[in-house]
């Protein structure tokens, strides 16, 4: 079980898990519920650069497409082929097996402006999205 307190969150419902210089990124349980059944995930190419809040991936449900934004800037070092093969992982295990990509973090100070789990739960409760 992943410890949600160790994650950081964006206002656009992505989570970031920092392991050393690498940040793993996925979407929250709240997001996967809103999106409903994920049918396809378009992952970024390994090696490409992303900017904080820039579009890095796209999640498709049957009826809609959702942009996934990078919580921090950096270079994509990993893309999770498992969610390409089985998109339902995003719904079933959004914080663990359903991760999308990993970024080599360029500027650690960008993590500071992200929300803690407590702040994120408050954020979604107030319905601000």
């Amino acid at each position, binding site marked *: 079980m992943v410890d949600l307190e160790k994650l950081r969150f964006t206002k656009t419902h992505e989570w970031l898990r920092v392991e050393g210089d690498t940040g793993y990124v996925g979407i929250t349980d709240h997001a996967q519920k809103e999106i409903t*059944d994920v*049918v*396809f995930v378009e992952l970024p190419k390994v090696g490409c650069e992303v900017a904080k809040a820039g579009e890095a991936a796209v999640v*498709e449900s*049957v*009826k809609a497409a959702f942009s996934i934004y990078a919580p921090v800037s950096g270079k994509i070092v990993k893309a999770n082929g498992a969610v390409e093969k089985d*998109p*339902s992982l995003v719904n079933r295990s959004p914080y663990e097996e359903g991760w999308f990509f990993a970024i080599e973090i360029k500027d650690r100070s960008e993590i500071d402006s992200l929300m803690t789990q407590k702040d994120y739960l408050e954020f979604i409760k107030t319905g601000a999205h």
Partner: protein
Amino acid sequence: MEKLIFEIGSAGRKGYSLPKLDVPDAEIKSLLPADSLRKKEPELPEVSELDCVRHFTRLSQLNYSIDTNFYPLGSCTMKYNPKINEKMAGLPQFTGLHPYQPETSVQGILEVLYETEQALCEICGMDAFTLQPAAGAHGELTGMLIVRAYHTSKGNPRKKVVIPDSAHGTNPASAALCGYEVVTVRSDNAGRIDLDALRGAMDGEVAVLMLTNPNTLGLFEKDVKEVADIVHKSGALLYLDGANLNALVGIARPGDMGFDVCHVNLHKTFSTPHGGGGPGSGPVGVKAHLADFLPIPRIKQKRNKLSLDYDAKKSIGRVRAFYGNVGVIIRAYCYIKSLGCDGLKDAAVEAVLNANYLKVKLKNDYRLAVDDEPCMHEFVLTGKDKKEFGVKTLDIAKRLLDYGFYAPTVYFPLIVEEAIMIEPTETESKETLDAFAETMIKIAAEARSNPSLLTEAPHITPVRRLDEVLAARELNLRWKKSGV
């Protein structure tokens, strides 16, 4: 369940006949090099003519269609498709014409095309038309290319296209295809374009504003002339998405409202059949200052003879080979001729009458998306008040199928939550409208008393609700021979 055509027939069965070969026979490999020839044969079916007829006839019986069911699809104008127009367009002296035949041998069809252009100019208040685009979206692309060519001729192609948030998805898609950046402008509470937001969005890099009028909530943009002024002041052009023209024919003309360029949908306003997804036709009309940019060839008249003129240096070029979806255009020509100036106007009036009648019959059991005011040819409801019963717009749509009605347009426009867009068109009788209204009211009651009737609908169509998630997760997009 109907088998696939590949699952019917057997090896050696023939469904065609060819005349016996009357020129000397030879092995193909003696005439063509071996490395240009096919090695793997296509696994096409082998069926008899009767196999084929039964298969496709039975498939057709699984469909709802205008000929069999009421289709209140907003923004689609599913009016009756006259049979005489089918027969006329199918005459061999039309279908048997090769597009490169000498012009002297095709004056009849050139007349039909030319007269259609002229009629559309009159109906839309425009100075010139092209019949080349094969669909509305194709017309939008053509329009965007004309806009770009115009601005380029003035020294700066500009960078942006402004589009209301209520617009059809093809609008931003067409602008993007043309290399423009899309700027979305919000609508006000009545679904009309917000003038302040528009003023804020217009600058020297906006090439054009794409507007639908009446808009996608079925309302006439009352401030259209002011919109035109705002747009023109910054040197930009005004484009009309003519999908909703059915409310305006003979009533008011886009050209008079200040539109510089527009497209019309022959498969909507002008009664040509939808064919299960085309063919359509999306002619584009322009004011004189844009006529030089129209695609080539143009039809020109010289001394009582019509000819195709390819000599237009400023033209955007071509958006397709040949001249347009001529077979579709012939049907629209027949329609315009049949109705005439009086019939065309009556059709618009009765389309608007039918929509308002239906709205009045439904507004007590369903929530209108905007404040109650007369709508044009269509109106929008929101299904969000049914959420408390655990019912969504999708469920209402599926339940309608059980009653033999095709569903209205759902989840469009995007600015309305749980949108239901209803457009009856003028060819529906009062009995049909009453029956539809009664059914909708019944379904609203079912939502309260027995919502699973809706959430598990449809119950009596050839298939029950289909699993779209499975279709997207486990893609099966073609038949493959087993063992391959």
